[in-house]
């Protein structure tokens, strides 16, 4: 059975959604991500939805769940690359993407995650984590 791959990059988990998700795939992704966060202690999840052409209330709820559950495990979730037409539609549908941050692209999303993590636990150090490209504002 197919699954959406999850990449681990330092303290982040990276997911790129390339296909229109059918329900099973979306539910599996939710479960896999939560499992991965608790197993690896990842501090952030970045979900790239730039290839997704529609987000309905079901998909929206899954994304929201990922945000809420990862928060319970002390990780932040950023959704990046939402197509403008999708954003307009979500507003009209009335779907609040609660519990997740959004950013324009992967790069900005990464910056946002790093910022969030710095703010929430400045004192923690991770040997895997390269501090050289931190944003110092």
């Amino acid at each position, binding site marked *: 059975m197919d699954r959406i791959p999850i990449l681990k990059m330092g303290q982040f988990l990276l997911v790129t959604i390339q296909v229109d998700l059918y329900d099973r795939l979306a539910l599996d992704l939710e479960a896999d991500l939560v499992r991965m966060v608790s197993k690896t202690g990842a501090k952030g999840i970045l979900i790239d939805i730039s290839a997704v052409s529609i987000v*309905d*209330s079901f998909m929206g709820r899954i994304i929201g769940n990922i945000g809420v559950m990862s928060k319970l495990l002390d990780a932040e979730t950023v959704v990046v690359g939402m*197509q403008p*037409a999708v954003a307009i539609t979500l507003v*009209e549908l009335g*779907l609040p993407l609660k519990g997740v941050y959004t950013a324009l692209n992967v790069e900005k999303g990464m910056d946002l995650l790093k910022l969030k993590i710095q703010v929430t636990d400045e004192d923690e150090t991770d040997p895997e984590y390269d501090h050289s490209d931190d944003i110092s504002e």
Partner: protein
Amino acid sequence: MKQILNMITATISLNKDHMPVQRDQDVVPFRNRVKEYATKIRMGLVNQTKLQTAASELVRNMLRYGGGGEILIEVVSRGRDNGIRLTFSDKGPGIADIAMAMKDGYSTGKSLGLGLPGTKRLVNEFDIKSELGKGTKVVILKWANG
């Protein structure tokens, strides 16, 4: 029924397609079919996205609450504008209180209760008929340039 008939007399149906939907896996092919038709009549991207999202909500309701059903996809025309009309029919339990079901946040399925009211906001025409014990029929219409 009268309202649906009025909608039909104002428009001409150019093309018809029936799709049974019984399982989750039928949702993506159905959405793709809608996309094909919408592209054919040159519906703009934002309108297409709205239509597909609305369609997705209704097909989900049909599967979840109506036990599956059938969808009629039509290309319709009125004057110069073309549009897509989708009719979702199921033989499920029906909806006891439609006014309630149309409210934002009302759900008997522990969900967000956004599907029906959200769908109505996303399309140009929306009609819902339901009879307890008989089933539910929802008709939506989106104009290519509406």
